[in-house]
């Protein structure tokens, strides 16, 4: 799924939405989560104020293209003494990285789009194992105690850490259910809490608006994300998933709850409640349906709340897209959204660098409370003001994108750990509300994402891919009716024969290995 995220979405030009990062368990709405793990270790940063220049290959986002003149670089220099000599990829980041590694001309710091990449390059010997430098990283060491899940997710299969872990930014990766509250109110329909209620609501809407497809989603554009959403609603998984209660790895798409989910979507399809071409629907088509009142319920990235409201309220002041609590699929099931608020990308250090120790000093700053405040809010007086204990952006900043464009804050290479309240404070009330509500439906745990060895990766890519293809194909066929649901047992057998056991064993082995790694020497 994360691979899809890293490749498919940029294709769909939704890069901004995905460029989020990894989230911990902290509640973005509560400023209480701003504990300071690095408080006592801050002297380390003041010692490192010697001037240094490092080369860096950073990602470049079309919405806020890299600028040398961004004030953020100056602020970072004031705090750390470091100037980055930045190169941005001329084409795709992944290609630029391959080229840099293959030509052995590695910049000191490199931004990698995901852990798979950094683990691969790390195991090939191109990257520094941060675990070896923990004595130079007092703030990070303290930080890892506060965010052990995040730290573990950053480990490679051999227990090394090739990428600086991050936290806070992933919040933008949240996906939620949304609905046209105005239409629901007008028709006197209650917000559904279960799929059965959702089904009834959609049927009522279809009866009132025969031209509409009340539920619409761009399944074909982000299939893995959608599968995750749908399966989490039904208390199962879109592939191999870890069941925290039973403490075991299970394969979702052969479970009975998954079958119920497929049955529900088949009903939606048969009754015209979703567009017949939902598998191939383009993002533009989906947007048009939602904005022109052809669809009233959808699932997508959380920022779409504002996206639709801002665009539509000008001509239709009634238009009101709001957060909808995820419906529960099974009777007595929990209402849950998937755990998407983490970020896969991050900074890595080249093993060929001559400044490794200085870089460690520099990067450690970003795990200090000062570093976090700088990355999130900028500089007091220049970008933010303090009112008591709360930090507020100065009034000239009203929009996150504009803020990032103007200051360079929270652009590639300028953060690892951020206070998501910084973003939140610039959001519209609707979006703020959505964030406040969304955290109530978070799963208790993040699905583990253990790193695999090369051998395991081969199983995941060859066997896993064959299984996944059969799953996707079968889902499509069951829902559209080209295969009868009565064939379910046969489907389970087919997919098991492709090697589900082997896949689960691989996940289990990788997971157990990561669980057994001790995070730090102390």
């Amino acid at each position, binding site marked *: 799924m994360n*691979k*899809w995220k*890293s*490749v498919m979405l940029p294709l769909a030009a939704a890069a901004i939405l995905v460029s989020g990062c990894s989230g911990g368990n902290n509640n973005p709405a509560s400023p209480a989560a701003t504990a300071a793990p690095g408080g006592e270790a801050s002297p380390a940063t003041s010692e490192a104020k010697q001037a240094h220049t490092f080369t860096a290959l950073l990602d470049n986002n079309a919405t806020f293209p890299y600028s040398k003149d961004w004030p953020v670089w100056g602020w970072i220099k004031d705090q750390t003494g470091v100037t980055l000599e930045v190169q941005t990829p001329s084409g795709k980041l*992944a290609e630029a990285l*391959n080229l840099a*590694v*293959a030509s*052995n001309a590695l910049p000191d710091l490199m931004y990698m789009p995901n852990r*798979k*990449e950094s683990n*691969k*390059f790390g195991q*090939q*010997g*191109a990257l520094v194992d941060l675990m070896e430098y923990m004595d130079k990283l007092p703030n990070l060491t303290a930080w890892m105690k506060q965010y052990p899940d995040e730290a573990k997710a950053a480990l490679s299969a051999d227990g090394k850490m090739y990428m600086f872990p991050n936290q806070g930014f992933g919040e933008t990766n949240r996906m939620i259910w949304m609905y046209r509250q105005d239409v629901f109110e007008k028709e006197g329909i209650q917000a559904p809490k279960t799929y059965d209620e959702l089904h009834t609501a959609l049927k009522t809407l279809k009866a009132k608006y025969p031209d509409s*497809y009340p539920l619409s989603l761009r399944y*074909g554009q982000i*299939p893995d994300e959608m599968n995750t959403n749908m399966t989490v609603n039904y208390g199962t998984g879109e592939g191999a998933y870890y069941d925290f209660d039973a403490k075991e790895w299970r394969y979702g798409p052969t479970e009975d709850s998954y079958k119920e989910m497929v049955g529900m979507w088949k009903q939606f399809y048969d009754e015209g409640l979703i*567009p*017949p*071409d939902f*598998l*191939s*629907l*383009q993002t*533009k*088509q989906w947007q048009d*349906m939602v904005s022109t009142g*052809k669809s009233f319920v959808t699932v997508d990235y959380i920022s779409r709340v504002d996206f639709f409201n801002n665009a539509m309220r000008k001509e239709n002041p009634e238009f009101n897209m709001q957060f909808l609590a995820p419906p529960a699929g099974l009777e007595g099931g929990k209402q849950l959204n998937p755990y998407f608020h983490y970020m896969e990308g991050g900074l890595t250090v080249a093993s060929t660098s001559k400044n490794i120790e200085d870089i460690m000093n520099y990067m450690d700053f970003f795990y200090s409370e000062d570093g976090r405040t700088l990355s999130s809010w900028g500089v007091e007086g220049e970008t933010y003001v303090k009112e008591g204990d709360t930090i507020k952006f100065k009034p000239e900043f009203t929009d996150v994108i504009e803020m990032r464009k103007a200051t360079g804050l929270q652009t590639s290479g300028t953060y690892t750990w951020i206070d998501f309240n910084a973003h939140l404070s610039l959001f519209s009330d609707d979006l703020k509300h959505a964030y406040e509500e969304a955290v109530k439906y978070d799963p208790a745990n993040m699905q583990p994402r253990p790193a695999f060895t*090369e051998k395991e*990766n*081969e199983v*995941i*890519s*060859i066997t*896993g*891919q*064959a299984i996944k*293809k059969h799953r*996707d*194909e079968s*889902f*499509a*066929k069951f829902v*559209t009716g*080209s295969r009868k649901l009565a064939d379910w047992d046969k489907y389970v057998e087919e997919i098991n024969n*492709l090697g589900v056991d082997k896949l689960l064993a691989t996940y289990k082995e990788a997971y157990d290995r990561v669980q057994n790694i001790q995070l730090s020497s102390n």
Partner: protein
Amino acid sequence: MAQTSVVQDNLRKEMKDPYRRQGRLLRTWNHNKTLWLLFLPCLLYYLIFRYAPMFGLVITFKDYNLFKGIWASDWVGLKYYRMFFENPDFWPLMKNTLLLGLYKLVFGFPAPVILAILLNEVRKAAFKKFVQTVSYLPHFISNVIVASMVIMFLSPTGGLINNLLGTFGIGPVNFMNEPGMFRGIYVLSEIWQHIGWETIIYLAALTAIDPQLYEAADMDGASRMRKIWHVTLPGISPAIVITLILNIGKVLEIGFEKVFLMQNPAIYDTADIISTYVYRVGMEQGNFSYGASIDLFMGIISLIFIYSANYISRRVSETSLW
């Protein structure tokens, strides 16, 4: 007089001698120095950019480590080939790739020939130019755009084609959900995209036909169809055969981008081809060796195709690539 001629003869001999002693190669070099120099950049280009990289194929037998470089990477023998052949999807993928390629060849290849001949018969120059220009245009549209145009036009929810069919009381047809329709849709969109561009070579060949042949045919009272059959077609047949051979070599080379963007799980039965498979697997792993192995395998098959086509053509007609 006689003496001078002897001197001249000797002189001539001396001048020629060095050539004789130096052997043929140097002689041709000295003769065609300028031509060789003109050829040099081209030669270098092929050596450096076309032949040297071929040695990189050695990574298909190695576990390629980007950081250590090709030579330091470990040998793994035929591991990646085995991985590909033993994959349960191998045969369906192969079948889909071949069939899609064949459909494209069978329907896509004659289309520009027919269009070129039709254009050739058009008497109004202005109309001809207009049609030519319009038919070239789609060639310059990016595949990403074409794929989403196709999907949107064929959409059962307000797509152009279904609206049209609707006025005749047909449909709506869920085109992109029918495995049986994918190949047709793909090939048609390919024809639409490239037909104009591919006529260029035939139109060029058409201008080379001697007008006297048409005049002679006129004198014999040949009809239009007869002239096309007996003059036009034979006139451009070498061009047709050459392009056909080249296209046969390209049967397996189907543009990845467009198929990938047009496919969805409901039509994997027909729409999943080797390159889209490689993409999906590659995303999981970023394995250069595996990708290169599959590419080399496909390259060998293409070579067999093009060689056989050329062989047959040489036997049957006089036209061939080599």
